[in-house]
């Protein structure tokens, strides 16, 4: 790391020396690398959106293909999916609060809100797993019909995304505790929140297309 001595502007937060390219920007955009990664993540989200669109299209085509098995109306438990929705929407809000506190350079509050977000995420996943297990116990499994294959795959893909987000956010919380807020950790907090909000948006569609249209 001796060569960093040549670098013009430096920021001595956290791990090692971080070269700041744009000190006037919001902290997550202060390095060239950070700005690039945030843009790249937007592009990635676009591809993920298309992935979900394809799964939605598949679900819409197959939702009537129940093969004499259970339908959405028989399976979906309204209080359960409404609760999931509220939990996930709230977690998106708390994630947003974390970003807000990050811009005010309040590390402990960022960590706190992220922990709340993770806990909400965990309870969402817990409820979803409970729902899935319940359905499977009633014989409504992935193998039962094309409708159920599409249901479990679409909702399950979203659930996997949320689970991955939980692991990822946990890793970032650890880094925040260790290194504090610096352009690198700030970029990570910002990106994981983009991801989290995106999953929230996807859930809004899931809620509408799968659950609401399913029970109606």
């Amino acid at each position: 790391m001796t060569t960093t001595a040549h670098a013009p502007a430096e920021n001595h937060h956290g791990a090692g020396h971080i070269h700041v390219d744009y000190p006037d920007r919001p902290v997550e955009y202060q390095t060239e690398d950070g700005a690039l990664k945030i843009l790249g993540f937007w592009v990635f989200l676009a591809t993920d959106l298309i992935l979900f669109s394809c799964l939605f299209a598949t679900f819409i085509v197959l939702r009537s293909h129940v093969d004499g098995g259970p339908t959405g109306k028989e399976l979906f438990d309204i209080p359960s999916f409404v609760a999931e929705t509220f939990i996930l929407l709230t977690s998106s809000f708390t994630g947003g609060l974390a970003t807000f506190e990050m811009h005010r350079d309040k590390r402990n509050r960022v960590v706190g809100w992220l922990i709340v977000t993770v806990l909400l995420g965990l309870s969402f996943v817990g409820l979803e797993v409970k729902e899935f297990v319940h359905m499977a116990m009633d014989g409504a499994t992935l193998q039962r019909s094309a409708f159920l294959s599409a249901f479990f795959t679409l909702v399950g893909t979203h659930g996997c995304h949320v689970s991955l987000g939980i692991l990822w956010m946990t890793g970032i919380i650890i880094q925040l505790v260790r290194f504090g807020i610096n352009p690198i950790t700030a970029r990570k907090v910002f990106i994981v929140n983009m991801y989290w909000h995106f999953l929230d948006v996807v859930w809004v569609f899931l809620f509408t297309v799968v659950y609401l249209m399913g029970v109606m």
Partner: protein
Amino acid sequence: MLWFARFVVTFVTPTNEGSVNPNSLREIAIPARKGERAVQRGFPPHFGKLATMVAAMAVLLTGCSPEYVVFNPVGPVAKTELHLIILSTILVAIVVIPVLILLAVIVYRYRDKPGNNAPYSPQWVDSKKLEIVWWGIPIIIIAILGAFTAKTTFSLTKPPENNVKPITIQVVSLNWKWLFEYPDQKIATVNYVNIPTGVPVQFELTSDAPMNSFWIPQLGGQEYTMPGMAMRLWLQADKPGTYSGYGANFSGEGFAHMNFKVNSMSEADFTNWVNQVKSSSPALTMAGYNQLKQDSLAKQQSYSSYPPGLFNDVVMQNGGQYMYKQQMPGASDSTGNSSGSMDMSNMDMGNSDSGQ
């Protein structure tokens, strides 16, 4: 390149190949030799290629010979399609031929050789007028071709002939054989299908195996046989004769052998044949069908009857229940001519929308 044409002749002739056409061989050989000479003289590369192309055109232009089944239509559907093929060939040639000529001329004229006094204008890289020309011409060509395409696409969903009562034949592709059912005559055949000449035939297609494609080039283009779907293909033969039919979509190991024969015959002959099948052939039972369904090849067979509603059941079992809310009247045994109820465009719209 003459050597290789000679090689082909000497090599192929003794293999007892009935259809070697010496004319077509000569036509390959002559232009190819020209091409070779052009190459040897060191002309720019396109000359060799042009020559090869001419050779290929010669091959294509021998289309009058009977092997070129698409160029020898015997029914109105295949004829309409051939007309479109010819029309589209001419229209694309309007662009392609000038491109090839321009390329040859430009590459020759502007080659970087000492003493080449053709103009060199490196600054001339834009011309609104020229660009309008070559945006405009393809647009016009595509507009013409598009109009013909639209018109023909819609017209081919209707029976080719309105004054004659059509006949319905239901086709089930199996691994690896073709089952034909005649709902009006209540007979069935395997790997051959007899049709009355001059009568529009409504083929109803499905599959009880991986999808295949039902193709009788001399009568008209193909249509897929798909599990869970009943699709309709109108064809008609104008002349008596025997025509080849092919399974055109790969369906596994025995696919290459999935051919069938189409015999077009007078109405009287057709009726005689039906009566003969009814009196002398065995019946196809459900057990027999399940046996037939197994992976195997089959010879031509005839059946005096088949389980009623077989086609309909096959479609419904394989997923048709989600596509057709009620029974398909067009696929039931009693109605040979209730085609209107099996509306292709409606039923298949659902499918093509599915991916969006």
